[in-house]
């Protein structure tokens, strides 16, 4: 998936703009020529009256001449549904979801079938909306968090929903009867601060949460205790972040993930050895390690299992750190189907990164291929690749606008 043109760049190519070169060491320090890749602003969507916090492309819309649909949520307490007009190419706000949430709507996510939209609000609730034609009806309100809900995510099958809150907890909900019935199946405690985002693995029931406590936690269901538990914590001592972790995204295969932070870095993690029973019924290395630890007294009560498998490797291993690219907090990161990582930050810029396939003597590395300065007039809060057309990127900002970008490469 990595475009060939990225691979032939001489290592001495000059850096553009005013960004400082990244530190030497583990960081990728290469950059493609500017003409190689660019972001062209196609559309500017205006309507929200406060900062736009988050975006979600409807996964079953767009492509093959069908109109694409995008949801956005804002500090103005509303969710807007945008649909592309196929005749004119323009984007129209077709529906405004309002008067359900009484405070900021922080996060929104479509179910995999595209028929349900979940919205998480500072009012401590998560709403489920059913999409019938152009109409949206609020069919459930999930209550239980003590205060602001920061993020919501659907599992790959659409049967599980995760939410997280400033109350430091992560909740897992089972969604039944097309969304009319939702039961909380687990309340996960372990973070010591505000949980900023939850994200399910793209094809397994493994959940990742990131927090103001600087850590990343991985959660999976443990059949023996019939409950969910933290199976790994990635923190500063395991090459993790030194400040608030704001977002996480998986690549399409789910064997890597990227996180971004207030420490101005992005980190790439190997997620290859997953703690899930294989399809043939055998156990992966993690289960063996876990069995050893299950009777282990102190180890079992520890929230972290730094060395779980027999050969002593971490399940989610730090691969590389990308630093020196953003000047202020990195709020959002998204990994495209084509392998391009987009990041949006408080410096008003959007950066794009790809894996550097040249000489991997020291293991995988990633390099920046583009930095779009002043992509918005204020902080960039969300970047989201279109799942059908991996060259389309949407971004949302404190300036109240949403932009649709064409990535040319």
């Amino acid at each position, binding site marked *: 998936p990595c475009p060939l043109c990225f691979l032939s760049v001489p290592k001495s190519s000059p850096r553009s703009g005013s960004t400082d070169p990244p530190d030497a060491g583990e960081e990728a320090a290469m950059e493609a020529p500017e003409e190689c890749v660019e972001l062209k602003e196609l559309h500017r969507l205006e309507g929200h009256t406060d*900062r736009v916090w988050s975006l979600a492309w409807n996964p079953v819309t767009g492509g093959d001449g069908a109109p694409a649909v995008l949801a956005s949520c804002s*500090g103005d307490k509303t969710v807007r549904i945008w649909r592309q007009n196929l005749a004119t190419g323009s984007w129209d706000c077709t529906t405004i979801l309002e008067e359900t949430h009484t*405070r*900021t709507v*922080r996060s929104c996510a479509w179910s995999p079938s595209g028929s349900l939209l979940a919205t998480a609000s*500072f009012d401590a609730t998560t709403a489920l909306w059913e999409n019938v034609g152009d109409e949206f009806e609020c069919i459930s309100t999930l209550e239980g968090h003590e*205060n*602001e809900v*920061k993020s919501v995510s659907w599992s790959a099958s659409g049967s599980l929903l995760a939410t997280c809150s*400033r109350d430091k907890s992560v909740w897992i909900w089972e969604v039944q009867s097309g969304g009319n019935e939702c039961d909380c199946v687990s309340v996960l405690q372990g973070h010591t601060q*505000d949980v*900023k985002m939850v994200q399910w693995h793209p094809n397994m029931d493994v959940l990742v949460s990131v927090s*103001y406590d600087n850590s990343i936690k991985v959660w999976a269901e443990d059949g023996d205790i019939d409950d969910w538990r933290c199976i790994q914590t990635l923190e500063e001592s395991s090459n993790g972040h030194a*400040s*608030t972790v704001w977002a996480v995204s998986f690549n399409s295969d789910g064997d890597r993930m990227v996180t971004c932070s*207030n420490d101005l870095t992005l980190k790439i993690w190997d997620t290859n050895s997953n703690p899930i029973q294989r399809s043939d019924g055998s156990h992966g290395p993690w289960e063996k390690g876990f069995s050893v630890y299950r009777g282990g007294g102190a180890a079992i009560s520890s929230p972290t299992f730094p060395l779980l498998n027999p050969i002593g490797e971490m399940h989610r291993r730090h691969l590389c750190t990308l630093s020196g690219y953003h000047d*202020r907090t990195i709020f959002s990161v998204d990994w495209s189907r084509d392998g391009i990582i987009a990041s949006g930050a*408080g*410096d008003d810029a959007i950066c794009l990164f790809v894996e550097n396939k040249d000489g991997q003597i020291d293991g995988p590395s990633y390099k920046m291929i583009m930095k779009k300065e002043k992509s918005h*007039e*204020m*902080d960039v809060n969300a970047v989201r690749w279109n799942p059908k057309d991996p060259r389309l990127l949407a971004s949302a900002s*404190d*300036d109240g606008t949403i932009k649709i970008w064409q990535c040319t490469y």
Partner: protein
Amino acid sequence: MVSQLINANPVVYERQERRARARQPADDDEYAADPIDQLEVFDILFACCGKKSLFFCCGCVVSLTNVNHIRDIKDPEHPYTLEELKVVSEDAIEVDDKQSYVRVTFTPTVEHCSMATLIGLSIRVKLIRSLPSRFKVDIRVAPGTHATESAVNKQLNDKERVAAALENPNLVDMVEECLAQTYF
């Protein structure tokens, strides 16, 4: 506002002469781009000479009416002015207009000041409302001056938590009360 002294023995500093703003001939043109400087940000926070003032002390945030000069504002706990207590001095305001950047460093007079986050929040709200939206604002307590310095700084600069705090009616009332007198 406080029943007992939070800071029994504050350090008192010399008053400084207020420098006059340098007037450019082009100032007659009100549409001319006038870069925002340190003094302007100081004036936003501590408007003096006819404007009303936002006023902090070591233990509480107080807004006073009919304030004509910041040097006349007294700390309610002590017969000293804010300037003499150096909660915020002009030197603690860093401005880079070209980079659209402002950093305000404030100094609680006691290292366990319980109002530090409210003071910082009030400074942030005031600057958000007064400066052009292009400005990035960092607020912090002066290094070494607060017991939970890093926690206070982290919270004041997490815009999501600030946004959530500013949806809390009780907190907004406190900030508004504190800021109300800084407007004409």
